């Protein structure tokens, strides 16, 4: 195996935060490197340094044995380094072809003039290379999410043609937003590239790491703590290396503690449908119950939750909360009724950017801690928010830090804290709550949700993986094409196998 890239003692500090320390890493041709670590351990920072997006504070990088300084992403591209971001980095109002060549020179746009047909042809060739059928003339924002993800991939893989030597491709949590089919496609590309390129693959799903990588590197607090071939690892050992403690196995909750059969259900939905997706759906959730919703993309699970939260247009059907019919015309109305929603897209729908943790957490229910629920009491809000920050183990410098400065997993915990802060929350809808969370943080999160449920909070939960659903839920409902296709009550020992669930989903 030829060595392509080496980092020597690379470090990065942001103000007083050390994101990365003394990182020595070697990337070789023909190898997939799996990178794991807790939230905020510096994985993204490392990738961004290699990808030219961030300048290291110390250390050096060697490309083919020669030191390099990468000044920008396009600089890295010119050196054959491509990076797939978790958040898509396409320009929505440009065409597919332009996006593919955004960071690369091409004869079709030499001298600053566009020869559109040649550009489209070149893009079509790139798309063909990875067997994708997308019109290079299409505007990116007109594409479906999955198609956009494919364009993103095509854009990165086009660096292959740019350099004569093997390219380096970096993937930062690419799978957390993909469907099984898309993941399969991605892995096929990785398999194809494996021979000719060096690949770094970041994921919080240890199974994926074990499946696709040749070597796993574990990071903690900006340092490398392990670097081993995956053959020497299994899920448990990887988890231990990462989290530094034993994995908690789901303790099946005693059936009798569940008030599942109480007379009035917490939530009772009949004939709920949206203009877009959900066929009339009918279900009930008991107080303190955790209901898992499963379904492939466009199964309607997400629309169902958003409809319950008043965030969908054209919603029909009746919703009863604690037996009383409510009209959820807007998120505000839902909140009023005691329904909370943790969005899948926290950057846009969850966080108030540029605001502190306290401000974020106190936004919705802070007033409950005020005088007579009318007048704001900042001190009380701050105290409660701080309590939750501790309880959720948010890794932060201070409760007054800006939420933007937290790593993704910690941001998610803050957004969750906004809802848990409430004293009158009846129902919490969790839309892919573990997205981007490291396994340890996920366990923390599950523990908190379980304890809140034990106090009577009802939860509807759309999971990232089937494993999660089985881990957390009392009951699982599988959705397909906007309708419910199967139901399993886990507490009754009615545990389905993963195969059963997959069959019900597709």
């Amino acid at each position, binding site marked *: 195996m030829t060595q392509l890239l080496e980092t020597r003692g690379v470090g990065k500090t942001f103000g*007083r935060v050390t994101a990365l320390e003394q990182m020595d890493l070697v990337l070789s041709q023909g190898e997939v490197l799996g990178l794991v670590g807790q939230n905020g351990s510096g994985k993204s920072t490392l990738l961004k340094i290699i990808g030219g997006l961030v300048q290291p504070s110390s250390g050096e990088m060697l490309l083919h044995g020669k030191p390099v300084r990468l000044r920008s992403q396009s600089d890295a591209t010119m050196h054959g380094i491509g990076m797939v971001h978790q958040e898509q980095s396409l320009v929505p109002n440009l065409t597919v072809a332009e996006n593919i060549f955004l960071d690369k020179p091409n004869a079709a746009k030499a001298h600053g003039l566009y020869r559109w047909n040649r550009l489209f042809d070149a893009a079509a060739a790139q798309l063909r290379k990875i067997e994708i059928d997308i019109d290079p003339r299409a505007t990116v924002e007109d594409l479906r999410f999955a198609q956009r993800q494919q364009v993103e991939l095509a854009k990165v893989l086009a660096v292959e043609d740019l350099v004569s030597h093997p390219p380096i491709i970096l993937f930062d949590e690419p799978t957390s937003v993909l469907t099984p089919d898309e993941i399969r496609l991605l892995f096929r590309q990785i398999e194809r590239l494996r021979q000719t390129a060096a690949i770094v693959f970041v994921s919080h799903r240890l199974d994926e790491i074990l499946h696709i990588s040749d070597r796993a590197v574990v990071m903690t607090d900006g340092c490398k703590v392990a670097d081993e071939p995956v053959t020497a690892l299994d899920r448990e050992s990887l988890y231990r290396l990462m989290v530094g403690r034993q994995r908690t196995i789901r303790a099946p909750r005693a059936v009798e503690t569940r008030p599942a059969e109480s007379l009035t259900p917490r939530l009772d939905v009949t004939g709920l449908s949206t203009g877009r997706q959900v066929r009339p759906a009918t279900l009930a959730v008991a107080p303190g119950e955790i209901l898992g919703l499963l379904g492939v993309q466009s199964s309607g699970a997400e629309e169902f939750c958003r409809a319950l939260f008043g*965030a969908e247009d054209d919603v029909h059907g009746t919703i009863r909360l604690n037996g009383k019919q409510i009209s959820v015309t807007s998120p505000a109305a839902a909140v009023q009724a005691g329904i909370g929603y943790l969005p899948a897209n926290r950057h846009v729908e969850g966080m108030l950017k540029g605001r502190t943790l306290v401000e974020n957490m106190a936004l919705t229910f802070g007033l409950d801690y005020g005088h007579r629920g009318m007048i704001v009491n900042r001190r009380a809000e701050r105290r409660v928010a701080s309590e939750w920050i501790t309880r959720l183990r948010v890794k932060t410098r201070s409760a007054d830090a800006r939420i933007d400065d937290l790593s993704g997993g910690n941001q998610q915990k803050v957004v969750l804290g906004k809802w848990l802060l409430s004293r009158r929350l009846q129902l919490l809808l969790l839309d892919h709550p573990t997205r981007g969370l490291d396994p340890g943080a996920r366990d923390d999160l599950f523990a908190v949700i379980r304890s809140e449920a034990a106090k009577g909070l009802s939860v509807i939960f759309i999971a990232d993986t089937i494993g999660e659903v089985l881990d957390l839920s009392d009951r699982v409902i599988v959705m397909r094409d906007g309708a419910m296709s199967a139901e399993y009550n886990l507490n009754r020992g009615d545990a389905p196998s993963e195969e059963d669930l997959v069959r019900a989903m597709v």
Partner: protein
Amino acid sequence: MSQSQPADDRTIQAKPGFAERRAALRRSVPLAVLILLVGLSAIIAPGTLSPAALNGFISDAAPLMILVIGSTIPILTGSIDLSVAGIASITGVMLVVLAPIFGPWTCIVVILLAILFGAFQGWLHAWLQIPSFITTLGTLSMLSGLSLLLSNATAQPLPDSDPIINLLGDTSFDIPNTGFAALALVAVLAVVMRYTRIGRDLFALGAGERAALMSGVRTVRLRSFAFAASAGCAALAGLALVSVTQFSSPTLAGNLLLLSIVGVVLGGTAISGGVGGLWAGVIGGLITAWLRVATVLIGVKPTGQYIVFGIMALIAVFLTTDRTKIGIIK
């Protein structure tokens, strides 16, 4: 969870960090600029700080300040209200038109009408999802046409017995009452902004509208409130203006629109929303009012007044804009 880790590395510091202290410093820049300006003018023209001069300044600055405070509120949410000067102008016209009907209550009625109008236009903008810039540009055009139509394009004397106008035009403790009106307005709005959910929601809307919406903020209602507040302030500014002129005119507030935008920005409120506040509006209004007369104070030739005003405004904005909180500057 039984094996919970010691939370040593995750403890929360209570002490404000370097970043917070720097932010606090940044926030005080507009005030520093104001003090600097006042200090300079006191050196250049010592008489400017005499009580009589200050009173004159207050009575000239009050309408502008009220307008700036009002405009700040929609801007905090990331919208903009271009109709404020139009509302201020039509206020005077309505006062004359409605006086025969409502007698001593005319001012109240006019302010309520303005608030209603503002709420309606905020609703129009938020519910129909038309950009505020174009909504209020459209209503500005309609308002100016309407006030010309209603007044037949002439200046008319106010009914001289209107109690509120007389009150505003009067002085207490030798200080113009319009100054007190501005203060009272700030006090009321400050309480609303600081101690009710409205203030918090306004800032949330400016910081990230989708996130605010998904956190239960009633955006349409809130926008209506924001525009109602700015229209109400504009009407009050109009009343303050006519209490000085004693005449109404369809073009009374003329170019105060541009000055009010300058004022909002000079106070440190970000045009993109989410950053700033009422206090910023007060300071911005005062700086702008001062800039407006600065050219005369320092004796700039009349032909140079525009340029000097433009350059001074740019320098002041350069000093007072807090760029750290705004990612992309449009």
